[in-house]
């Protein structure tokens, strides 16, 4: 009888059922936390990409560049390609210029959006600047003294459509 009591004291612990229940609860809780963590991480990555990915930051740069060049351009003429693939505007080199003596042309080369600066007379290229890459589509339009650009940037994982317009202000 004494031996039996000792044995029963020594066998105290979890039953198999208790262990299984505990394990199931732990697995469920773990999975739930895991799902939430993974979902949160995915959401974070998505949001971060939407705000800070290369196509998004490039879109800001493109807008600023297009805005600056067009607004400073001469409103007397904006030359557009027949298919809207490029636009050329004219501007003054500096404050001492008496006539419009420079041009700037936005165009797509490969997957890059470039802006070419040059002098008019005689016509010669001064500089070509790459504004952004990952261009999948780009069209320009003109209405009066304003120019519009529709640009789609696609880096393979994210696509960003930019529509921007600006009015030429100089003579």
């Amino acid at each position, binding site marked *: 009888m004494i031996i039996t009591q000792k044995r029963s004291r020594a066998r105290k612990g979890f039953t198999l059922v208790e262990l299984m229940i505990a394990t199931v609860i732990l697995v469920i809780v773990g999975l739930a936390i895991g799902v939430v963590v993974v979902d*949160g991480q995915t*959401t*974070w990555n998505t949001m971060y990409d939407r705000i800070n990915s290369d196509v998004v930051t490039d879109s800001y740069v493109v807008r600023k560049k297009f805005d600056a060049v067009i607004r*400073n351009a001469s409103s007397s003429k904006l*030359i557009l390609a027949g298919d809207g693939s490029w636009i050329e505007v004219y501007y003054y080199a500096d404050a001492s210029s008496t006539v419009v003596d420079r041009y700037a042309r936005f165009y797509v080369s490969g997957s890059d959006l470039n802006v070419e600066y040059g002098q008019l007379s005689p016509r010669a290229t001064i500089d070509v600047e790459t504004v952004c890459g990952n261009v999948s589509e780009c069209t320009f339009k*003109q209405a009066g003294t304003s120019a519009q650009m529709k640009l789609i940037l696609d880096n393979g994982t994210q696509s960003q459509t930019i529509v921007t317009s600006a009015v030429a*202000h*100089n*003579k």
Partner: protein
Amino acid sequence: MKKLLQSKRQGSAVPLAVVSIIILLAMGVGLLGLGFNSRILSIRNSSDIEARCAADAGLTIALFEMNEILKAKLWNSGTLPQATDVSLPYCDAVYSYNVTGDHLGGYVIKSVGKSGLAQRTVYATTELKGLFDNAVLTKADLILKAGTLVDGYNSLDKHDKNTNADIATQSTLDSSITLNSGVVINGDVRVGLGGNPNTAIKDLGANIAGLKYGATQKEPLPQITVPATLLNKGTDISATSDTVTITPADSGTYTAINLKSSTDPGVLEISGGDVELHVAGDIQLGQSCQIIVKEGSTLTLYVDGNIHSRESSGIGVESKAKTAKALELYATGNDTQYFDVKANSDWVGVIYAPNADVDLYAKGDAYGSVVSNNFEFKSGGSYHYDRALKKVSVEDEGIRLVVDRWSEGKS
């Protein structure tokens, strides 16, 4: 089991829960921070755009008010427009502007737009723009005869080597501009607002040194009114086989001008200075009859009717420098007019007739500028645009202020 539950030993559930909460909290804070930064960036961008629009609006309004002052000819510096913190409709932006300078040295407009913390400032200098900015500007059709050379010169500055001269139409219809074979344009060819130059220009073998393009804005063609200072003379000016001389003292309104040829051609001679004539009816030049503007004199003609020129008749200007402003011809009628203008040698002068169809025949070259409804250069040599016409004063007809140079700053 009972003992285990009563045990004071700590389990792992609470730390696990705390760690989970911290992780979720960190993620939540991170996402909130990301969203907040994105929102701040978005607000800054929209504020910047609003401020820019407000600054542009201020500049446009200041320029409009300047032109209203120009129309009223109130050139007093005290009347220069200014405004402070005017609300831009449908947004929170405000604009302020002020104008400095005078009509001799030019004006500078400063316009500031504000929205939230964003502020944009634009500056513009202005210049006066007259009616004759192109060699030829039409509302509808423009036809140049074969072999016409269109270029520029400057009657006020012999050293000006710029020979650029533009021609333009405000029409966008097909073949609005016809350039016959051998035409040479030493400048641009412009068609109407939004027009397609490839269809609006009928090129039959011309050489265009500049660009072909659609206009970016429609140039206003204001109606010219006859100066109230011209007194009604109640008669016409006529000369039959004789010469009639008109001096500045004879300036006024006449019913018509009739020059007839009998034994000799009738001649109307303008001399002694600046003559202004308003002709309420037609101008008829009989065969070989002439209107001659003598060297040193100018003639400004306001014509309500038509101009008919018979064979070998013409309007001649004696100007060694080929000063186009020596003869100014304005169509002031209410209906469609027709100007049949001839010159026995060179044609020198400007024609502003946006409601008239103008045909120009010259036995020599043509010097000056034409603004008309339809225009055809029917005969003559080359067509030279007087670039001195770009220099205008507040006393000239139909002037307006436009932006000359524009710049932008952040503050």
